């Protein structure tokens, strides 16, 4: 048993036993869903289906239904893609990087954060696929032998790197998540009373029995997967940033993009985790496991990554002037003072100022304030991508080609639709899956549970 310092706040509040942990996590799955769940699910489903309908219309008509024009060939589609991929960065960071750093507070949040990651990457993947126009030939991005002659995809292109990065990230995250889920499904299986539930969880749990050898392998597989996923987290968003950084467009051609995008991704991902978990802990009665200290830890991550993002914005601005390149500096002056000034200043306010408020202890421990900031950060990070993408291309070298981007209603519907679908997936997850890694939480109960830490025996030698 590992012990921790007495001054460290316990991670599990109240007097909990192993059985209580099982009860607390399984009860919401076994009970009838509350009315609120059906209402939220209904709303999310309607919005999601509206998005699906808009995608069908788009595929039937062509991507001309988007608000793109000759100058602005990329706008909401790639903005939404990068936004969703960014959100998808918190889950694997929490479960992989924090596992390597032995941060035990991750155990309360890693399951739902990883679920969020997977659903967010699903949503992200939608955009490049529908942007192809002909979705049914989407498999052409893979180097598959074909009858067109010696025709291969271009391995020099960052867009192809992205194909490999996103598909690796999605599939490895999915495997990591599922391997952790197997023992927890077994717990639900062994408690299930209804035959259908028993059958379903029996299939999902793969016949897990909790043998010592299996746990030995489980721990090593988790560790090695964490070791593999850690560089993956950093590489994926670096590669996403290469989509822009390897081009020669002023405003995109920026060498600091990879670390800047990774920090931004973690920043937005943690904000989304906060938004979801602050509601979920309340709705599912998990306040003893996900409490103020967990929120504070996540707010510190938001503060650090937000400061990196802020530094990157200012560095970028300075270098554009210092470079002495007319077009480069214009790209940045235009962002701040041109027709898209409102987007730029929304981004600056949301992403540079708001995380700095987290230096104040009272604010970063306030759940209401955290919830508000998490929404602000999500909005700010959407604007960041919009500013980088649209303002850099809407006024290029030839003033005759200058243009503005106005989203069509299909642009908006597809974006809102992905948010709806995301919540459809997340609500299904919260209803049928163990939202807490319950068997992992049991391993820290004696080391970090409140009633154990406060007992007089805790600091005696064991």
């Amino acid at each position, binding site marked *: 048993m590992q012990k921790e310092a007495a001054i460290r706040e316990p991670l599990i509040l109240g007097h909990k036993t192993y059985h209580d942990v099982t009860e607390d996590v399984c009860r919401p799955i076994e009970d009838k869903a509350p009315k609120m769940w059906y209402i939220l699910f209904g709303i999310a489903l309607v919005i999601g289906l509206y998005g699906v309908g808009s995608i069908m219309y788009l595929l039937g008509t062509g991507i001309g239904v988007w608000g793109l024009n000759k100058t602005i060939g990329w706008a909401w589609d790639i903005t939404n893609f990068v936004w969703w991929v960014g959100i998808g960065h918190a889950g694997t960071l929490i479960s992989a990087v924090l596992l390597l750093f032995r941060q035990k507070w991750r155990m309360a949040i890693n399951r739902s954060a990883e679920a969020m990651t997977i659903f967010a990457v699903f949503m992200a993947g939608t955009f490049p696929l529908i942007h192809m126009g002909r979705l049914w030939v989407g498999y052409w991005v893979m180097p598959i032998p074909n009858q067109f002659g010696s025709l291969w995809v271009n391995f020099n292109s960052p867009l192809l790197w992205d194909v490999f990065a996103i598909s690796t990230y999605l599939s490895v995250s999915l495997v990591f998540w599922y391997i952790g889920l197997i023992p927890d499904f077994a717990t639900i299986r062994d408690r299930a009373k209804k035959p259908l539930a028993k059958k379903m969880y029996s299939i999902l749990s793969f016949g897990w029995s909790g043998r010592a050898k299996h746990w030995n392998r489980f721990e090593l*597989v988790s560790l*090695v997967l964490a070791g593999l996923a850690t560089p993956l987290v950093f590489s994926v968003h670096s590669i996403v940033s290469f989509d822009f950084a390897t081009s020669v467009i002023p405003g995109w051609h920026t060498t600091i993009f990879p670390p800047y995008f990774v920090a931004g991704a973690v920043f937005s991902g943690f904000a989304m985790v906060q938004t979801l978990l602050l509601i979920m802990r309340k709705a599912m009665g998990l306040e003893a496991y996900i409490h103020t200290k967990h929120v504070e830890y996540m707010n510190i991550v938001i503060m650090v990554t937000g400061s990196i993002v802020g530094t990157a914005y200012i560095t970028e601005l300075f270098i554009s002037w210092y470079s002495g390149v007319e077009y480069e500096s214009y790209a940045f002056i235009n962002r701040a003072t041109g027709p898209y000034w409102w987007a730029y200043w929304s981004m600056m306010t949301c992403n540079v100022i708001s995380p700095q408020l987290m230096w104040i202890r009272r604010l970063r421990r306030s759940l209401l304030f955290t919830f508000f900031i998490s929404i602000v950060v999500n909005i700010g990070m959407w604007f960041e991508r919009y500013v980088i993408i649209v303002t850099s291309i809407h006024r290029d070298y030839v003033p005759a080609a200058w243009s503005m981007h106005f989203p069509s209603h299909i642009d908006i519907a597809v974006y809102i639709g992905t948010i709806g679908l995301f919540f459809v997936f997340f609500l299904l997850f919260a209803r049928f899956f163990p939202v807490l890694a319950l068997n992992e939480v049991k391993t820290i109960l004696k080391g970090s549970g409140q009633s154990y830490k406060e007992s007089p025996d805790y600091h005696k030698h064991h």
Partner: protein
Amino acid sequence: MSDKVLYVMYDDDHVLKHSAEKLVSKGVKIAEVFSPFPIHGIDPIIGVKQTRLGIMAFLYGLTGLTLATIGMRFFMITDWPMNIGGKPNFSYLENMLAFVPISFEFTVMCAAHGMAITYLLRNKTLPGMPAQNPDPRTTDDKFVMEIRLSDNHQISESELDGMLQEIGYLELDKKEIK
């Protein structure tokens, strides 16, 4: 040959570990331990060897790296060298920097999936497999040791019962298996 199996149940991981230590010191072989979460330190006591899945992950990763290198060399250098801006792809090395991201991603993909599949196969945990834990509570808050009489010829059943009585347990269940 028929065999008798003893399932000794505890409600605490540390108590089980200490009991296992005492039993092993008296020469009893413990066949298996079922627990809801990993009990740290139980493996050397009951003689479970450290898994070699880590080595497998490395080999799968190496396979991925090799495949990525061979593939990209064939596609981009041998089969159809592209001439981009007057800079043709003469050799793999000259073009290697552009191949780093995919080499890395493919290595990780093969290592992770190869290891995960091996893990599931070695555990025999696959969709539709039946659960084998002796008591449904072992995935909740109970910990069970499995002792087989056939592993412990030198000790009689009554001697074993005496030892267990002395060490203590929560529940004891005996099963005949054919």
